């Protein structure tokens, strides 16, 4: 247990903004840039913005979650960290589970915070903003889990790995997007609840899928 805490501390110091695994503020800035550019692109019609703004926030959140994927596992595998953990009897599954948490902490809460200025830019108010925030809370853990699974699966790919993992993530993220963003148009909690349910399922699968992928990568 203390070993896993040490791993979590290391993961957070690498992945949180200001951490060393490069450009960790980038997803946040990317997210805000999309929210800022959208009104310029579609014109300053408050009704149109208010109707589409929530969906834009969701798409921006999904794309922002892709950015750090290529740095999630590759450096640790190359530098032999996973070998050393395996020798100490720490299962890949446990390391991956810790990383899902660290990855989510590195972008989830910040995106929810950044959704406030983004909502202002897009003219979302009161209940719509609340639905977006709750939806992000329910959906981003699932996005983190998908990201971790994809990053583990593509860990041995060099060069084009980042772009490919982005492409692989998008179809898997569609259910979360459908229910998370869909909650906006029906204005109810059922969409959020379903997004949360999908998130829970993905978070439960991620350690096993990711752990198996890391082991396969090591054998290669």
């Amino acid at each position, binding site marked *: 247990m*203390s*070993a896993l805490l*040490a*791993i979590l501390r*290391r993961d957070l110091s*690498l992945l949180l903004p200001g951490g*060393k695994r490069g450009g960790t503020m980038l997803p946040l800035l990317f997210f805000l840039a999309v929210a800022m550019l959208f009104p310029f692109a579609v014109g300053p019609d408050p009704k149109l913005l208010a109707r589409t703004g929530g969906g834009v926030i969701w798409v921006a959140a999904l794309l922002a979650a892709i950015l750090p994927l290529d740095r999630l596992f590759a450096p640790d595998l*190359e*530098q*032999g*960290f996973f*070998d*050393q953990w*395996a*020798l*100490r009897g720490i299962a890949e599954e446990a390391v991956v589970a810790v990383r899902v948490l660290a990855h989510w902490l590195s972008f989830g809460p910040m995106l929810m915070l950044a959704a406030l200025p983004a909502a202002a830019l897009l003219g979302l108010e009161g209940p719509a903003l609340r639905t977006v925030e709750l939806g992000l809370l329910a959906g981003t853990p699932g996005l983190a889990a998908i990201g971790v699974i994809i990053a583990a699966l593509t860990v041995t790919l060099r060069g084009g790995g980042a772009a490919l993992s982005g492409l692989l993530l998008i179809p898997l993220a569609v259910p979360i997007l459908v229910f998370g963003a869909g909650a906006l148009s029906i204005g109810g909690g059922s969409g959020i609840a379903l997004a949360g349910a999908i998130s829970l399922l993905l978070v439960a699968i991620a350690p096993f899928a990711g752990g198996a992928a890391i082991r396969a990568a*090591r*054998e290669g």
Partner: protein
Amino acid sequence: MEPCRLVATDLACRRGDRLLFRGLSLALDAGQALQVSGPNGMGKSSLIRILAGLLAPYAGTVAAQGAIGLLDERPALDEHLPLGKALAFWRNMDGAGEPSQQLGLDRLWHVPVRYLSTGQRKRAALARLTDQAAPIWLLDEPLNGLDLGAVAQCEALVAAHCAAGGIALIASHQPFALPALTTLDLAEFTQ
């Protein structure tokens, strides 16, 4: 040191469509050291990884009693961290106290790992290995990049480890000075 034993029976290793070696058996008891020699590409590193349980053998079994420490070309230290902190991560994980072996590293304690030379990295990895206090040491080319003084230090470390009842398996094509070192030529096990 806890009792340890390392037994491999009838190992075969296949990489791609090449059978690197087959019919390899070895048994090491507490205090014994074995050098695996052979030209490049013969499967020395693969043998080490099979013994460590990190690679599945094509055939055969490995039974290890006691924790295994691995030293290879990857030090598993965070590149951006000062050496002291990077080593502290593993000491914390292994429940080790103060750094047991300085290996001439104390001057480098505040230097980020990415600025270290090949030999200094190797010494840092040796420090990580000694801190781990595992009875079975698997060393893949431990002398690569080390200067003469560090080679002697490394040999002394391994000798002390074996004298204390540990097992050492050294994969290297370089001579390794160690009392009672047996050798195993991997070339004998190619088909």
